[in-house]
């Protein structure tokens, strides 16, 4: 009972997922080393997906209680899949494409991620261990001893094997930078380029499509970029400052100065706060869908909770292979080292299900952080129950030269609606560039 790879032959031949898997049939099978064991993988797929495909759920231990940790979001939004990779600590396996010969080690585990003796802290402190306030209660020698102990135990990962050399950052200047190559980002970049301004479009993913890349029922072609748009993929924006945006592209820093910056960063997913929500095998619906698009099924007995777009896509793609509870909420997940079931509730009814993958399509939220760093005002939205950058009708924020567009602004909408919003924001950027 574990996640595993599926083959197009396992699926109905007329399904979009089968067509996707055939279209993206892996060309390069490679081997990576995980804690001394060889793992078959596909070059270019996310390392965390490859490890899941090999049946590995637990990759690390948590910082304080040494609870098991595994991939949860597969989007770089959680701590679940941090590994030591080729001697470098704290690498997000979900954001790292597989290369042949990678050496992957579990971290923060004594002795192994599967069995960790420091888990006793979790048993000793069943509610929680308030180390912030615990330490200040003791004086003198005891306090000093506690401090030494705490310093040894604290932190995540250990120092790299070698000192790495980093090439000097590349400097780029453009009229407009668009962050996020989903439906809205591509449409926005196209609108700006067709107006004659120089545009750099960046995305941390390996190509355009955004949310659509992770929908197993969507095998239509993504709208292309205008030839005048410079697109960089595998290039994530990691920080924005007043007049500079920092990208990480193939491990190298790129500093972009742009007169206009558009954030088309979309939405985040989460599973919600319930007992045992951190146990390996609890996934967001998007994570499960993303893995499936790479041919990896995140469990043998999959329970899908919620009725969002990814839950519906999973049910459409997998049919009777999954149990769907569209109107239910999770009361608690069951299982110690990995999920083995859940208690669900709907109205007055409460019931237990057995599963080895608990997949939740909960409320999504705006990925506002980069726009906020750039200076946009971010406010609570009662309607969406999350924080959203404030913007006018076109997507201009209160901060000159900073724009937001697409799902970030409106929540999940159909791809063509997101593209229309992107084009609207792009036209506004052009007007503002000409006016300034």
């Amino acid at each position, binding site marked *: 009972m574990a996640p595993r790879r599926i083959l197009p032959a396992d699926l109905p031949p007329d399904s979009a997922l089968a067509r996707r898997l055939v279209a993206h049939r892996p060309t390069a099978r490679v081997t990576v080393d995980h804690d001394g064991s060889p793992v078959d993988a596909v070059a270019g797929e996310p390392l965390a997906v490859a490890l899941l495909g090999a049946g590995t759920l637990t990759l690390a231990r948590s910082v304080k209680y040494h609870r098991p940790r595994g991939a949860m979001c597969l989007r770089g939004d959680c701590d*679940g899949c941090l590994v030591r990779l080729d001697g470098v600590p704290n690498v997000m396996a979900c954001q790292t494409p597989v290369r042949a010969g990678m050496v992957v080690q579990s971290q923060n585990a004594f002795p192994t991620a599967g069995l960790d003796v420091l888990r006793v802290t979790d048993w000793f402190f069943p*509610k929680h261990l308030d180390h912030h306030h615990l330490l200040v209660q003791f004086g003198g020698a005891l306090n000093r001893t506690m401090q030494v102990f705490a310093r040894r135990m604290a932190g995540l990962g250990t120092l790299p094997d070698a000192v790495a050399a980093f090439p000097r950052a590349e400097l780029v200047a453009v009229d407009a930078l668009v962050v996020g190559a989903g439906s809205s980002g591509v449409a926005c970049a196209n609108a700006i380029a067709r107006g004659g301004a120089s545009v750099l479009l960046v995305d941390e993913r390996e190509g355009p499509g955004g949310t659509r890349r992770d929908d197993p029922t969507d095998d239509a072609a993504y709208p292309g970029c205008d030839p005048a748009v410079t697109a960089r993929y595998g290039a994530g924006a990691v920080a924005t400052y007043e007049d500079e945006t920092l990208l990480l592209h193939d491990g190298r*820093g790129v500093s972009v100065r742009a007169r206009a910056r558009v954030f088309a960063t979309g939405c985040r997913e989460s599973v919600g*706060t319930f007992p045992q*929500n951190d146990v390996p095998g609890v996934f967001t619906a998007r994570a499960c869908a993303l893995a499936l698009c790479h041919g990896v099924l995140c469990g043998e007995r999959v329970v899908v909770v919620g009725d969002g777009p990814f839950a519906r896509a999973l049910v459409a793609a997998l049919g009777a292979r999954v149990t769907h509870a569209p109107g239910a909420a999770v009361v608690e997940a069951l299982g110690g080292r990995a999920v083995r079931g859940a208690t669900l509730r709907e109205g007055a009814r409460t019931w237990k299900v057995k599963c080895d993958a608990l997949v939740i399509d909960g409320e999504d939220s705006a990925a506002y952080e980069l726009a906020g760093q750039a200076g946009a005002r971010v406010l*609570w939205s009662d309607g969406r129950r999350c924080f959203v950058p404030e913007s006018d009708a076109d997507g201009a924020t209160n901060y000159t030269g900073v724009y937001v567009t697409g799902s970030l602004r409106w929540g999940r909408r159909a791809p063509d609606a997101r593209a229309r919003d992107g084009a609207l924001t792009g036209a506004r950027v052009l007007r503002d560039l000409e006016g300034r």
Partner: protein
Amino acid sequence: MTAKAMLCRCEDVTLDEVMEALDAGHHDIESVKRYTGFGTGWCQGKQCVLACARLLAQVTGRAPEMPITPRPPLHPVPLGVLASLGGDEEG
């Protein structure tokens, strides 16, 4: 029993711990962060800031107007990358 509900999984901050902070009188997101340390870990608040805001809305009846200040970087970046930015002045 170890049925902890993790509000902030990066720093192992439980729902129970955050409820204790609320009981101690911390009703704004910034104070709860300082009291419990949630939002200070690997993900820099991408999961837990929202979880805490939704909890505050539910418990106190009022959501925070703004999140804790989103500061760069979005997720941890090797120091070598930041150093490689140099600066125009130094050439």
